[in-house]
């Protein structure tokens, strides 16, 4: 028997390429005759283009063409266009120029005259909600969606809503959406202790290391694009949609992705822009996106201005949770963060009664999208310090109060009180407390050493951990190797390899005999989940397990056909298919592959299951005849939603004379089902938590309110955490309790750590400040020092983008 690969550290198949410079990311490709594109970005937060004069630029030697909004597909408000005549944020692309070299393209852009008429702009949702407040869009400031209506609307609150609110408390006018469980008023009525706070969470750019550069060319009627995307197969589908073309005419090469965190889930307008510009000038085009541009077009997490009121019984049980979220929507689309935030809160605390109200307001700031734990990271980082406050008032241990309210597998989630596949947050809290040494450390809470005071924090953070119903595609070739075709992306989670283990283990193959095929759509991909929302390990261990099960059955049938007996009498092992009763009687998988080709039909992919997605069918058909082809859809039963959990515990030290914050110790413990790849899991936990640290302590946006333009648009002003801003030796753990409703038992883990990391820090800082919740992120040096010194705070109570 070959050693099972699940639960074992392996060397990812792409690692050596990554550290020898051979791994090729989008900007590393060249094509014969390749030219360069540069974008002209709007200098105004909101404007109307009155006139574009590119004549001087086009007269320049080497300038090949200009692409404007006139050349791209129209989209309906509030969707994001590829290029625009009404820029709605500073930095939005208005046009793109192609030239034989990048310097010429840059000079050409500077010579294009764009006459812009400034329009009113809004940076702060609360200002836009004022009766006389500006709207970010000419069509209004919210996008209304209900069962029968989807339209832009102007949503304003009454002056009384603002005047009535006590200084510093979130004004709460008419919400745009809401839901309730039970009667929150009654719930708060029953409470022995109440905590109430206004909470401010910043918007922040994803800033993956690799900007979304793109290279595109047209060849023989096909569009070839080299892109940076999280999800290979799904990027191809959405880009085809964006360009209104058939998927067959589109080759997407996405072998490596330099990080996405939700900003590169599928196709991005710049991909279509590059393709269309290439089409227009008849040359391969490279759009080299810079960090400066990435800040504008690279997506961001929506900020919240929120208010929460929690009621607790004396035993610590949460009787009521009243939540109001004003969401900074950015200029386009409709972000689900606020909804998810409420759902996550309901799951984490299982309140007996809950009410959620919210409004998502358009602003003239860069487009938002999911950012690792969208909504979840914000709300957990914001609410956990309130739970601490309640624990203090009730004289309870802060782990205990979380343990008490957290759900077990029979818990519920969301407005419809949906069920869970399984959940072990209580156990995760126990394990974290043990690894972190909660009991010993909590004794140091608030103690000072010289000018440094210690704070201990804890955060409990769930997030959706998987989807279902995708396809797996495998080929056992005459070389005896198993080829696992992956349509998911490769952004460093190692999912391309780890989800393949479901197949290799089931077919009992040595890992060396497994070949993972990924990244290039010309190499035949199955219909796959997006590589986002922690779906992949769950969705594709299932899909590959289904395909491997089908492959095993085909092997058994081939063996039975050639060697007699019933298929069920045969077992796979060590690269062979053999009779259980007489292991000597069997054949190698190599031989079986040859036989499959000879037999044809279903065995070598000429006949396929009916329920496969068109993309999978096309890929399997292309592979037909190359070996034993197995293509199957994940139809395993799945009841309830799948959530993973991470507990973060941190010890921080705050210098009371400077406000400097140091994270001394950190422990992250996950409940994410079966552990497939320990080292990679640890990396996901720590990496996610570190992004949480960035949210909690340093990363931010800064906008000048007069001009509506940003300043914190570079790394040194946006301040993502560096290696010296995090603990030297963080610890981790995982429960490794399989989820009963998925074959391999693995749940996703990408998202939950972010909220855990953020909350552990906001909680620890509040603890160090004697329980004072600053209720705002990021907790930068100046914010902390102002709190300690009692000087004027560096921000107004509800101020955003500072």
């Amino acid at each position, binding site marked *: 028997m070959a050693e099972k690969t699940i639960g074992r550290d392996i060397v990812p198949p792409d690692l050596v390429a990554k550290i020898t410079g*051979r791994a090729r990311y989008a900007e590393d490709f060249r094509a014969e005759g*390749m030219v360069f594109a540069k974008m002209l970005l709007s200098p105004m937060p909101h404007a109307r283009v009155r006139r574009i004069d590119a004549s001087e630029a086009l007269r320049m030697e080497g300038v090949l063409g*200009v692409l404007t909004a006139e050349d791209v597909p*129209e989209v309906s408000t509030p969707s994001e266009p590829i290029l625009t005549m009404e820029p709605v944020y500073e930095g939005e692309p208005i046009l793109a120029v192609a030239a034989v070299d990048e310097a010429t393209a840059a000079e050409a852009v500077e010579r294009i005259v764009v006459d812009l008429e400034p329009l009113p702009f809004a940076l702060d949702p609360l200002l836009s909600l004022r009766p006389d407040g500006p709207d970010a869009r000419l069509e209004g400031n919210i996008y209304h969606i209900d069962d029968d209506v989807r339209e832009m609307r102007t949503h304003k609150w009454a002056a009384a809503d603002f005047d009535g609110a006590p200084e510093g408390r979130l004004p709460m006018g008419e919400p745009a959406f809401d839901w309730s469980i039970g009667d929150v008023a009654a719930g708060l009525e029953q409470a022995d202790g109440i905590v109430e706070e206004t909470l401010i969470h910043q918007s922040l750019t994803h800033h993956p290391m690799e900007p979304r550069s793109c290279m595109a060319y047209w060849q023989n009627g096909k569009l070839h694009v080299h892109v940076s995307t999280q999800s290979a197969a799904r990027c191809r589908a959405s880009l085809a949609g964006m360009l209104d073309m058939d998927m067959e005419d589109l080759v997407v090469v996405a072998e490596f992705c330099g990080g996405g965190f939700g900003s590169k889930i599928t196709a991005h307008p710049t991909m279509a822009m590059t393709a269309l510009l290439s089409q227009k000038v008849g040359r391969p085009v490279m759009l080299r996106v810079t*960090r400066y541009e990435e800040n504008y077009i690279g997506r961001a997490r929506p900020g919240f201005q929120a208010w929460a009121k929690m009621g607790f019984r004396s035993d610590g049980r949460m009787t009521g949770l009243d939540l109001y979220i004003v969401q900074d929507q950015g200029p386009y689309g409709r972000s689900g963060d606020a909804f998810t935030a409420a759902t996550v809160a309901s799951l984490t605390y299982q309140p007996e009664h809950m009410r959620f109200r919210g409004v998502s307001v358009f602003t003239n700031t860069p487009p938002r999208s999911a950012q690792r734990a969208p909504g979840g990271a914000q709300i957990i980082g914001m609410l956990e310090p309130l739970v601490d406050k309640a624990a203090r008032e009730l004289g309870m241990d802060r782990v205990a109060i979380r343990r008490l309210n957290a759900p077990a597998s029979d818990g519920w989630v969301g407005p419809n009180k949906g069920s869970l596949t399984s959940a072990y947050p209580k156990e995760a809290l126990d394990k974290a407390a043990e690894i972190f040494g909660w009991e010993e450390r909590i004794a140091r809470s608030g103690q000072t050493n010289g000018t440094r005071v210690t704070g201990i924090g804890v955060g409990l953070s769930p997030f959706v951990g998987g989807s279902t119903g995708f396809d797996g595609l495998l080929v056992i070739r005459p070389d005896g190797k198993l080829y696992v075709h992956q349509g998911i992306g490769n952004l460093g989670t190692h999912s391309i390899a780890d989800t393949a283990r479901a197949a290799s283990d089931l077919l009992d193959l040595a890992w060396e005999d497994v070949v993972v095929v990924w990244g290039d759509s010309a190499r035949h991909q199955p219909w796959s989940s997006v590589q986002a929302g922690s779906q992949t390990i769950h969705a594709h261990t299932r899909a590959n397990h289904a395909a491997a099960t089908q492959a095993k059955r085909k092997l058994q049938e081939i063996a039975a056909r050639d060697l007699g007996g019933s298929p069920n009498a045969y077992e796979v092992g060590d690269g062979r298919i053999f009779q259980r009763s007489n292991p000597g009687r069997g054949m190698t998988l190599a031989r079986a592959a040859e036989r499959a080709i000879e037999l044809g039909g279903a065995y070598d992919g000429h006949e396929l299951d009916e329920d496969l997605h068109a993309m999978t069918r096309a890929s399997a058909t292309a592979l037909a005849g190359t070996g034993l082809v197995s293509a199957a859809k994940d139809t395993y039963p799945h009841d309830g939603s799948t959530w993973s959990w991470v507990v973060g515990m941190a010890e921080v030290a705050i210098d009371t004379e400077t406000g400097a914050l140091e994270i001394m110790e950190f422990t992250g413990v996950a409940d994410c089902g079966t552990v497939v790849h320990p080292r990679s899991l640890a990396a996901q936990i720590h990496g996610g938590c570190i992004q949480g640290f960035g949210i909690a302590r340093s990363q931010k946006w800064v906008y000048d309110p007069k001009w509506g333009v940003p300043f914190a648009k570079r790394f040194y002003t946006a301040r993502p955490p560096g290696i010296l801003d995090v603990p030297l030796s963080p610890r981790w753990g995982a429960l490794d309790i399989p989820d009963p409703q998925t074959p391999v038992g693995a749940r996703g883990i990408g998202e939950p750590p972010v909220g855990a990391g953020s909350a552990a820090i906001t909680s620890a800082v509040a603890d160090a400040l004697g329980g004072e919740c600053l209720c705002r992120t990021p907790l930068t040096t100046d914010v902390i020092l102002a709190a300690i010194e009692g000087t004027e705070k560096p921000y107004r109570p509800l101020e955003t983008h500072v």
Partner: protein
Amino acid sequence: MDDVEIILDAGPKTYSRRTFIKGVIAAGAAVSASGYLFRGPGLLSARPTAQGSVERLITLSVNGQQRRVDVLPHETLAMTLRYKLGLTGTKLGCDRAECGACTVLIDGVNHYSCSMLTHQVRGRQITTIEGLAAADGTLHPVQQAVVDEGGFQCAFCAPGFVMSMAAMVATNPDPTREEAAHALSGNLCRCGDYNKILNCAMRAAELSRTTA
């Protein structure tokens, strides 16, 4: 939206909004002109070379090879490596000395290649990620350490980190974990894989001690 005047040639033309016409044109590869980032002065409106200014055609010592290359006065080393010498292992994450993805070794010392002119390194030994492994493919101790520890996630930062690790083990083959962190503090990892990266660094030091 109202009509917008758009002048895309010598004379003005007014377009009104129209829907996108589906269809693809077979473009293929047209005239070969792979000068990439920069071309001759004609396209750069560069003044005729002033007396005493640098010669454009220079020899660079990259990964042990002498490479003749035409370098413009304002060209950064990262651009020369990536677009003139085809060494795309050196990444550009910010182009502003704020992320370290472009880190290369100059005479064994780690520098941001995005923030130095190629002309500043004439006659100096340039080592990029491509030049780290031995000719026979044997990995550099640092690279081997990364393989041993399964380092990096998206790995866009990896070439830069690896080069900084190489510089570190050359000067301090027996660092504490904290010293290693300081040696690598000029490289950013947005995946937040710092713990594993430090494990790699410590392992790299260990390997370089044993192989040395």
